[in-house]
């Protein structure tokens, strides 16, 4: 078992160029898929690989693809590269190092689902990466991996890069579709789900960048091999982005199921300046916080759900004892208050209200009952909003307030 799958050749000079990528075996998976496999066989393989979505929700990619109905309407693929979850920087890293691996995954996915137009919706701030993707796309057109009759298979595919305009909410898949259609990025009501009614009212597959990165490896090496890279129900590796008070913050590609303790203390070199660990946010800011006592945990979807948190985007934020939990709460509540799209009542007003309370506490004007108010308001957001952003805000706020109540009480 090799530890690195997606990031294996990342040290290589000019890997982002198609020639270098091809020298490392790039586009062989696309050739195999388009020339030797039927779409059904690809779907079967991806399903068997138990590739779970890397964007945060962990929905199995193969099953998502299979929801696309057989219709005469055009179908679309949207790659979600709107990486906005605080603490998360994995997609920018892999895209900038190896844009062709993303394109190869897009080609196979599109061929499998019967899609001839794909969009990469990329976070607006990732301007340089968007340019790199554009270059990679034009190289792929030149080499005949994109465009008409790809590899003489009769399959056509066009890929477009669309830059977002700076809203976290556009990473939510239906808001992404609205934004891509040129509208205000407000989430849509579900059902209908994008697989049946998505972009321009047509069936649409939306996958995270890292999810698509895995596709070529599943095709080349098979589902069985892929599962061995991770866990039976959670195939493959994960790109962990470690930030905060560790010695070596950065990207670590590790098998799913690696222990959180090992990631922090072995791979990321342990705590910075010998400080003591206070808490960890294990899967991007939306993930409920874990205390220092809770880090003996396997980093996979199910284990974290069991611990009442989530793997999310696998962005690990390490907080040391010197960091005030009130500051953490201030950052969290400010972010969600700022990024709420404002469409539904509990998220729009609830997050702003909580943030106002936290700011007041930080100004030294807190009252004892404020802590209960935060808990009550966050509970009233949880589960009652139009899109997952409500829970993404309420759950970390609830976990921070509950687990660090004593410390918070010392500020009021």
């Amino acid at each position, binding site marked *: 078992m090799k530890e690195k799958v997606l990031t294996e050749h990342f040290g290589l000079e000019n890997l982002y160029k198609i020639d270098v990528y091809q020298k490392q075996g790039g586009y062989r998976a696309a050739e195999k898929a388009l020339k030797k496999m039927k779409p059904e066989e690809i779907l079967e393989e991806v399903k068997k690989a138990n590739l779970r979505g890397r964007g945060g929700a962990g929905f199995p990619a193969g099953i998502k693809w299979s929801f696309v109905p057989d219709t005469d309407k055009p179908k679309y693929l949207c790659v979600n590269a709107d990486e906005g979850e605080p603490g998360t920087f994995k997609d920018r890293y892999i895209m900038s190092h190896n844009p062709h691996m993303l394109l190869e995954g897009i080609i196979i996915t599109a061929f499998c689902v019967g899609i001839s137009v794909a969009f990469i919706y990329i976070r607006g701030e990732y301007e340089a990466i968007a340019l790199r993707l554009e270059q990679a796309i034009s190289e792929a057109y030149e080499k005949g991996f994109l465009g008409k009759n790809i590899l003489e298979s009769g399959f056509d595919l066009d890929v477009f890069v669309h830059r977002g305009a700076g809203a976290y909410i556009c990473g939510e898949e239906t808001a992404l579709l609205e934004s891509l259609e040129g509208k205000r990025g407000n989430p849509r009501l579900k059902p209908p789900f994008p697989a049946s009614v998505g972009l321009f009212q047509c069936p649409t597959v939306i996958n995270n960048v890292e999810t698509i990165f895995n596709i070529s490896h599943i095709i080349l090496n098979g589902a069985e091999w892929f599962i061995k890279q991770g866990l039976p129900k959670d195939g493959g590796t994960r790109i962990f982005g470690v930030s905060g008070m560790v010695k070596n913050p950065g990207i670590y590609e590790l098998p799913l199921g690696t222990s959180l303790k090992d990631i922090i203390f072995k791979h990321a070199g342990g705590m910075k300046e010998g400080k003591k660990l206070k808490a960890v946010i294990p899967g991007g800011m939306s993930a409920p916080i874990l205390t220092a006592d809770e880090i003996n945990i396997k980093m996979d979807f199910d284990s974290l759900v069991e611990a009442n948190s989530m793997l999310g985007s696998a962005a690990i934020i390490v907080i040391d004892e010197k960091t005030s939990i009130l500051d953490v709460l201030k950052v969290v509540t400010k972010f969600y208050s700022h990024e709420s799209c404002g469409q*539904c*009542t509990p998220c729009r007003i609830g997050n702003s209200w909580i943030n106002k309370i936290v700011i007041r506490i930080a100004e030294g004007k807190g009252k004892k009952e404020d802590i209960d108010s935060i808990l009550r308001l966050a509970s009233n957001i949880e589960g009652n909003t139009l899109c997952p952003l409500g829970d993404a805000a309420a759950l970390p706020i609830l976990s921070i307030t509950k687990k660090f109540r004593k410390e918070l009480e010392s500020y009021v």
Partner: protein
Amino acid sequence: MQERANEMIKIFIDEKPVDAEEGTTVLKAAERAGIHIPHLCYHPAFPPEGSCRMCLVEIEGFPKLELSCSTVVKEEMKISTKSERVVEARKAVLEFLLAEHPLDCPICDKAGDCKLQDYYYEYGLFESQFKETKEKREKKLKIGKSLILDQERCILCTRCVRFLKEVTKTQDLGVFHRGVHSSVNIYEGTSVENNYSGNLAEICPVGAITDEDFRFQTRSWFLKEGESICPLCSRGCNILIEYHPGFSRFELPNRVYRIKARENPEVNGFWICDRGRYGYSYLDEGRADKIILNKIEGENVLTWENISEYLGEKINSMSSAKKTSGIALILHTWLSNEELFLLHKIFKKDLKVEKIFFADLPEGEADGFLLTSEPSPNRRGAQEIGFDIKAVDLSTLADGTDFLLAFGPFLSGLFSPKYLKGALSKIKRKVLFSSYSHELNSLFDVVIPVALIAEKEGSLTNVEGIVQGFQPALEPPGESLPEWKVLCDLGKELGMDSKFYSEFPSPETILSEMGEKIPFFKKKND
């Protein structure tokens, strides 16, 4: 607009078995069963929006509370609209909304008529826990010819935005900014100027969009409402007339304060045009309320009780040939089906009067939606009854005419006063039925004040041939009375069709008689 009848399925709402149409939503099924689920952003004219979160209900088997406005019913679905979780969630939504609401109800036109107030009263009743500073926003933005937007009162249900997107397709309003700073606003350089703008103030569930025409005029709870049909074009939009029933502390300048749309999916949906909404001054301004006797032979004093006697006497004194050639009628198409039928029966069929003209307002321009080009409500009815709608030709009218019966105030708009006076002076006896005091009235011997459609009973046939009944919403002023009453009495005086007139017919019995005689009305009446 007719929905296909779907199969019925059984669901349970608050443990009560309820029949629901397959494919309908929980909210609609509940409404049909008489169970109100509170909602703010949902409006039956638009697809569910799901943003206010007021209509959340608990459904067995679903882990979260679900939106009743968008969740489709399933066989055996068990829905709770009153469980503790639902009640708490509803309270929470109200608490959130009111936290950022200015609570300026004392000066809000919507007070008493506001969903946020009603729901707080019904489902809220908590003490405010909000200790923070509320967001400051624009409170008096002029967004259209008659509309003021108060962004602080706005709860962002986006009904207005969706109305302008889906109904008028003008898209003048949008949501700007994000999160708690989100505000409805007008796009730069635009203004809500379409002929349906007034609907915005009406569909706003709170006092965010108010109508300058109504702003600070009265308190909504002083008003009563009556159902009627808009007579300002031939669409026949269903309306509610809001009027002041009288309040002793004030000298009231007028009765009617506001016209609102009344839902009718077959005619006007949920909307009315601005002409119909704001054109209500015709109900109060310049009304005639007393019988005017300019010239009358003998010592007769006319009251509404003996008008028909007076008219009958004049007609009876004419020879039958003279009746045909010596009587002239000027009608208009604000008259109801029943009135036009009586006029047709008495004058055209029985007296065989030849000179029958119509004096209506000149044709206008249709707007492509509800407003038609016909500026009166019953042209189609007059045609179906059998009238040939001929414009007034004054020389034919006056030629050999002894007795002119004219209806309506529109004659004055068609001819110059001098020309009109010259033509009418040739006619010996002239009687006018009109709702207004006007200099035209001086040209007639007798002017009888009559009720408007809002003040009487009857039916109208709209441009599409839909026959719609109406009842009085307002009292006719002073001595005014509906034309159909005079005409029924007159029929009796003239000794025609004694069977029909002996039992004083009501508009209802007249309409059923019409059904017997005219297939068009039979069909519509079934």
